[in-house]
């Protein structure tokens, strides 16, 4: 069972690790999953299991980041990352 600050730092570490993925979808997924996971287990009395799980997932994320960065990054930019606004012509009909 970690104290409050430990939980928060674990959350931060997970989010920070997830930022390093070259793929947009992986980045978004880690962000979404960590927030969901922490919020789900927020009100539990015994948080030791959840804490251990989060720690294990942190290791997994860090390993995957290294693996994904070994291969070339995606060639096309994901549409959600585009900076220019989407005009009508670009919308798929």
């Amino acid at each position: 069972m970690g104290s409050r600050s430990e939980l928060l730092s674990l959350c931060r570490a997970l989010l920070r690790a997830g930022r390093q993925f070259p793929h947009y979808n992986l980045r978004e997924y880690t962000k979404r999953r960590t927030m969901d996971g922490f919020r789900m287990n927020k009100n539990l009395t015994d948080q030791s299991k959840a804490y251990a799980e989060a720690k294990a997932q942190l290791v997994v994320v860090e390993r995957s980041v290294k693996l994904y960065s070994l291969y070339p990054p995606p060639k096309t930019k994901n549409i959600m990352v585009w900076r220019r606004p989407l005009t009508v012509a670009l919308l798929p009909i």
Partner: protein
Amino acid sequence: CDLTLSLCVHFHWNLRKRFIYFSKYKNLSPTWLITLTVPLPHLSLRLRSLTPISSSMASIASSTSLQARSRHLAIAVNQVKCFSYGRSNLSFNLRQLPTRLTVSCAAKSETVDKVCEIVRKQLSLDETKKVVGATKFSELGADSLDTVEIVMGLEEEFGIEMAEEKAQTITTVEKAAELIEELLMEKA
């Protein structure tokens, strides 16, 4: 911020010749009056020793506008300096006293606005809720996890990395903006 300049004017006796020359050049009658207090709101002339100082000096000083910045006085000072003919007996010390009025410039308004924007987006606040510099995150209904998410969003937006301990101390929008500016300045 107000600045008070104290000009230490240091003359020596063997400079009076130069001084007469100077005053004649300036078409002023050399007088040997010691003018002590020149009531200028922003300047104060302090005389180190009882050396003759012509009123021309004071008049020069006072002729500079009442809103005299240090630049104007420096120009006047430099003009006198060039008459010392290589001898460095004439020494002017322009010393800036510490500022009396301390304006606590907390954070730039653009940074605060950007932070507010991101907070609004993260917490999905509607337009009715006011987000100002002093609003606490807890007031807006954000718990510690939401704060962590907001801080992460800010880090991404500004391209900075916040340390753990510092990030845990963020409670208001103002603090976040200050930290961001600090880190941006360190980066630059």
